């Protein structure tokens, strides 16, 4: 059998390496098993082709204009720059952060392809070759071997395989690094422990740290704006304080409770940091946290200081320098407030970035304990600090496991224990826990909304999650039965929101979504009106 795309084709001059077609994608369960139930796929606009890289699959993740070389000399300069970046990825001083894992994954892959069927993107695309988890890894591995190892220089393609480094290869590789959500499901099944997700991550770093190229949502409007303005949402400290007032009023209106949300209170036990997207898109989530923490008598505070009110750290997806900068700001804020620990709200990547990955960029006075909100919440439920009536949540509920919080951090059970306590119709998706599938919004995809990228995300990246959700509710798929996908992560919620919208699943299947704390407040006996609105 011959496949349409080979590894060496990455450097082939052509308008577009592959074209996705609806009929090739993974089939969805009812009611989406019939034609016409989901929107058609579109062509990239011609003007985009001039300015951006559409030569991979026609979709654009990197929305920084990427000029094509006009001469051979320009192309050579690009190649040299790329190789310089690759050398730095393999250099102790420039990439101590991931040198060992990267070299292990480059050097020891047995190319057994055991990982392929673990990848939701590869499966959802109908097994398109370029989305195979080993494809981009093998491209980078071949470039490394061919151009930077003595064996490759002497023996050529006998040891490196067939690859040509040109503008097409580099440009397509840049885009291809953003066709993996870094969920690392492939790594879980690898007999050698090779990490294709990490290789995608390192390619992103090469482009960002060496060439300054990354999706605007992650870099210019992400980490850079976060450090300059205070939040990747552009929320300023003043804006944040206004929102807190609004949330207090909203709590009063919806629950009758007079809650003064603690902000900048020194000496509290916990500094709670939310993804600032919550304040703007889902203010009921920080509101629910405030209700729960106040009711449970937790010693806590929020921060209004620059960066301190936004837990996100997009650096974890594409740039180690930016990762370190934001992590430092987070702990600096905590240090000034003299709290005992930082607790991260319902945001998966912020969990992983601050608690796990950035654990090794902090030292001395910057080394402060950082923890998940999940055990705090479970402790509140377990110790019966809230009066909860599960009957108030008597509708079908399933749980989405954010990869960053679960597979990459091991916070698996606390959220489940809560749901088992407060949701009589809780059911698991399959697979779940550490073997879950990504929501499709991972690694920044949820916030990357330029041009046609959302279409790719909705059609391909989130497809497996959508299938899982439909299957979890297959016994009650009728739209008259209101159902709830609990996604305790801002970016996952964003991806699921767009997915439900794209497939019109709320209308067609009665599927709603939200966080975990909203379910907890919804179950509180002394709150009369439903906190969760499904209509």
């Amino acid at each position, binding site marked *: *059998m011959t496949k349409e795309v*080979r590894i060496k084709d990455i450097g082939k001059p052509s308008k577009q390496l592959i074209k996705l077609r609806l009929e090739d994608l993974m089939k969805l369960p009812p009611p989406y098993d019939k034609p016409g139930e989901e929107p058609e796929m579109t062509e990239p606009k011609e003007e985009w082709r001039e300015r951006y890289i559409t030569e991979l699959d026609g979709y654009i993740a990197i929305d*920084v204009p*990427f*000029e094509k070389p006009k001469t051979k000399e320009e192309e050579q*300069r690009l190649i040299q*720059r790329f190789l310089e*970046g690759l050398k730095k990825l393999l250099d102790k001083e*420039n990439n*101590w*952060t991931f*040198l*060992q*894992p990267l070299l*292990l994954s480059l*050097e*020891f892959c*047995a*190319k*057994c*392809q*055991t990982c392929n069927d*673990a990848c939701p993107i590869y499966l959802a695309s109908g097994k398109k070759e370029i989305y195979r988890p080993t494809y981009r890894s093998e491209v980078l591995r*071949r470039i490394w*071997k061919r151009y930077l190892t003595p064996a490759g220089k002497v023996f050529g393609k*006998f*040891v490196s395989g067939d690859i040509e480094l040109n503008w097409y290869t580099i440009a397509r590789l840049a885009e291809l690094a953003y066709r993996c959500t870094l969920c690392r499901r492939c790594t879980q*099944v690898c*007999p*050698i*422990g*090779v*990490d294709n997700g*990490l290789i995608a991550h390192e390619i992103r770093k090469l482009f960002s740290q*060496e*060439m*300054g190229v990354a999706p605007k949502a992650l870099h210019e409007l992400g980490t*850079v704006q976060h450090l300059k303005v205070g939040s990747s949402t552009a929320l300023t400290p003043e804006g944040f304080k206004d929102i807190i007032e609004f949330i207090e009023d909203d709590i009063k209106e919806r629950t009758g409770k007079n809650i003064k949300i603690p902000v900048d209170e020194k000496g509290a036990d916990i500094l709670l940091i939310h993804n600032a997207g919550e304040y703007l898109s889902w203010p009921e989530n920080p509101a629910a946290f405030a209700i729960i923490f106040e009711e449970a008598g937790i010693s806590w505070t929020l921060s209004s200081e620059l960066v301190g009110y936004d837990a996100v750290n997009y650096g974890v997806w594409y740039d180690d*320098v*930016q990762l*370190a900068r934001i992590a430092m700001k987070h702990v600096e804020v905590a240090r000034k407030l003299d709290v005992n620990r930082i607790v991260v709200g319902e945001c998966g990547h912020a969990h992983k970035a601050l*608690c796990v990955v*950035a*654990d*090794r*960029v*902090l*030292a001395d006075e910057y080394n402060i304990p950082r*923890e*998940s909100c*999940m*055990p*705090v919440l479970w*402790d509140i439920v377990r110790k019966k600090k809230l009066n909860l009536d599960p009957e108030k949540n008597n509708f079908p509920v399933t749980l989405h496991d954010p990869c960053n919080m*679960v*597979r*990459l951090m*091991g*916070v698996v059970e606390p959220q489940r224990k809560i749901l088992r306590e407060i949701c009589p119709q809780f059911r698991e998706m399959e697979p779940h826990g*550490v073997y879950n599938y990504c929501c499709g919004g991972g690694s920044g995809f949820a916030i990357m909304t330029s041009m046609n990228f959302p279409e790719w995300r909705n059609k391909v990246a989130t497809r497996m999650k959508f299938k899982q959700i439909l299957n979890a509710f297959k016994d009650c798929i009728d739209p008259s039965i209101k159902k709830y996908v609990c996604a305790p992560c801002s970016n996952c919620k964003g991806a699921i929101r767009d997915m439900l919208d794209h497939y019109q699943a709320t209308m067609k299947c009665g599927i709603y979504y939200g966080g975990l704390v909203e379910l907890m407040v919804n179950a509180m006996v002394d709150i009369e009106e439903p906190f969760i609105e499904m209509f």
Partner: protein
Amino acid sequence: MLSPLQISSYLAFAIFVIVVLWKFVKYATMPIHLRWELYPVPHEPEHEHGGSFFEHQNIWQLERKHDKLNELKEMLEEMLFIKRMFQNKRDLWYVSWPFHAGVYLILIWLALLFIRAVLVVAGIQGLVPIADVLIKIAGAIGVIAATLGCLGLLIKRVGNWELREYSAGVEIFNLLFALAVLLTGLFAWIKFDPNFDIAKEYMLSLVTFGSKPMPSLPNPILIHLILLELLFIYIPFTKIAHYVGKYYTFHAVLWEDAINKPGSEVEKKVKRCLQFRTSWSAPHIAGRTWAEEAKNPKLDVIERWKP
């Protein structure tokens, strides 16, 4: 007096050991990396559901417990049975596992030959017959399983599009080389040395540094031995030595979850790394140490990438 063949045997073994050790040292001396573990981590007490210490509060005060027994179990299942491939790529496992198990048995066979020779030299004759039996079993099963597995791997590698497309020439060559060694070994065993008597004598001559005479070797055995020596020299320079990588991917990356507490060894290593100087060229990086870069961000961006 040692023969050139004997000297080459010592050399091949020495090169193998030295280069493998060098590889271990290369990875062992790399700087600490950012935490990048992947759950389930088998030494976590809550490994059954993939849980970690992050499922608890006040993690710095927690007394960390490690289920070393479960880690050992997971490690052995992966080493001896290639569990992940068994679960996720059964068709390839049917040939990969016999090959790997066969190679393990051949290594055991070699070790047994060595032990037997030591027993003979030490005059512990009573244990020699037991060694003889074990040598026969390990050698016979090992060479048959490894040869069939290697042949199967080669057929898969060449015949299956997704395996062939991702293989460079050297990866096919590796299998051909191993197969050549195995086939000559199989032939030598069946035709000339069914009880491995020649092998035993040759090993005895090596252990005694030539004071026991080297047996006369028929040409097929000589060819096999030379090929085997070349393979020993070749392996550490290639991906066949992926056992080195496998040790580090699991133990130093996927299962490595040590907390960076103040004053800990981890913190000391991190502080050293934060003094490394960056030379990345992007406009938001200023070529300072990691510590300086982190504390005083430079935030320039490019509007458009130009070659």
